[in-house]
């Protein structure tokens, strides 16, 4: 029984990864989850310098989901390389660093800095709805998606994953733009911009007013987008958005994802990732399927 999947030449032990920003750098969750069992750990977004992030409250629960406006608080690439990378390298799992920036040169700086580090892949976050500069504005415009992808690819030594925003009319346009720019892999979806109002205080719940919606509430949108993109480009896809259990993960894989990231579910159940890995094994066994790769995009 084979659970191994390939992402642009990087072989993952299984398709289950963590979604950036929900798992830190893995340190905290390693109390609950054996990181060796994960296909990859995707880190919280890292910038060239430390970012303070947004004011609190930064999160709000919503029906079947949550809003976050953390705003990419992070210690910057230097601390990350010194402290978090050595921790992650102790495990038999792939390390994917999520990169954020306020300008193309910010992204490029981080990617260059990581070129010779023991990092397996880089995920470029051009779709964060919670920062004023960079983030989503880049990700909504096919032209700038292509430009950033190209700029990053020029200096990258690892395969580049472009993380797409769902806050667009037609996600196949930005997907194709990333492909044109030379992306190796696409990941989708980032969060969907949302808002919550506290009707008793008559005010926004989040200090940032808007936040990114994640969790099972958005899964049908994410599945649709993965399906659309899988049928529009020739790149492997990392699917995410609301994966809570093995059925959800399989939905993404059957829609066309080669791997999946688990985000909000970690908050509801810190063991979610491991349970999904076990669930995939059980599904293959029960259905007599020898190789998980045969399920990728099997629903047409």
């Amino acid at each position, binding site marked *: 029984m084979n659970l191994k999947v390939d992402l642009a030449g990087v072989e993952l032990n299984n398709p289950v990864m963590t979604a950036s920003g929900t798992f830190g750098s893995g340190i*905290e969750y390693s109390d609950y989850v054996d990181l060796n069992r994960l296909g990859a750990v995707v880190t919280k977004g890292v910038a060239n310098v*430390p970012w303070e992030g947004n004011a609190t409250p930064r*999160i709000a629960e919503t029906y079947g989901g949550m809003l976050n406006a953390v705003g990419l608080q992070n210690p910057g690439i230097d601390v990350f390389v010194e402290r978090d990378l050595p921790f992650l390298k102790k495990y038999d799992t792939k390390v994917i660093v999520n990169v954020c920036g306020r300008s193309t040169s910010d992204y490029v700086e981080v990617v260059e800095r990581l070129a010779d580090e023991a990092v397996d892949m880089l995920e470029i976050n051009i779709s964060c709805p919670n920062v004023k500069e960079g983030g989503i504005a880049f990700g909504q415009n096919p032209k700038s998606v292509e430009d950033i992808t190209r700029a990053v690819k020029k200096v990258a030594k690892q395969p580049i994953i472009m993380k797409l925003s769902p806050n667009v009319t037609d996600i196949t346009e930005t997907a194709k733009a990333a492909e044109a720019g030379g992306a190796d892999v696409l990941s989708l979806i980032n969060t969907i911009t949302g808002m919550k109002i506290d009707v008793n205080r008559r005010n926004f719940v989040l200090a940032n007013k808007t936040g990114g919606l994640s969790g099972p509430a958005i899964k049908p949108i994410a599945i649709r987008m993965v399906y659309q993109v899988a049928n529009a480009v020739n790149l492997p896809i990392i699917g995410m958005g609301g994966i809570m259990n093995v059925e959800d993960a399989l939905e993404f894989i059957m829609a066309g994802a080669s791997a999946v990231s688990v985000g909000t579910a*970690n908050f509801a159940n810190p063991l979610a990732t491991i349970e999904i890995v076990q669930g995939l094994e059980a599904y293959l066994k029960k259905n007599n399927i020898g190789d998980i790769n045969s399920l990728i995009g099997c629903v047409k």
Partner: protein
Amino acid sequence: MAENFRNTAVITSVVKLQDDIVSMWLKDEEIAMASKPGQFVSFYCKDGSRLLPRPISICEINHSEGTLRFVFRLIGEGTKEIATYKVGDDVVIMGPLGNGFTLEGKKAILIGGGIGIPPMLELAKQLDIEKSIVLGYRDVTFMDKEFEPYGDVYVATEDGSTGIKGNVIDAIREHAIDADIIFACGPTPMLRGIKAYALEHGIKAQLSLEERMACGIGACLACVCKTKEVDHHTHVHNTRICKDGPVFYAQEVEL
């Protein structure tokens, strides 16, 4: 491995203290054994529409029976759901989380405001020094009698219905309570007042803070508070309440 667990605990008692305040004992030996005053536990709702855990402070610990007490106010749907659980029901909890209070000093004031009062009870039990206990309420009091075995109890109510009329600082001034250490939990405006009072009088103060949480274990950076110094995790000025707190020395945090 950190000393915390995600377990299915069993409810051993549920009592309403007020219309909207419930006291609940849970049995979970691992978590009870590992817990100390000022730490909290994440409660996971059963209803699938509510994904995020509810952080609730540990109110009392019975190490010999392996049980923990929680006292919480019914605010929204989550706490209302938990309040419907009955003796014998299961509940998934994770904990103990956070740092808890550091037991120190010679003469302490324990200050609790509103639903910040419950976590002071286990502290009062374990803190083996001279103690004054100051409890602030809007109107109707609860749990105040439970503190009497552990020190002199002073009550302040906003409407003056019990104790002195005013807030906890008014009560401290009124009764000229002195101390070399303050421990406090309650609403932010109260903590802000206590911080000012403590600095003014040169008293050390440990404050227990609150913020909306997602992971509860330091991974998501939802629950930060502003710090005076650069924090050790992100190297900015935002530290994680769930992991590096909820208890901070007054001078460490900006309120």
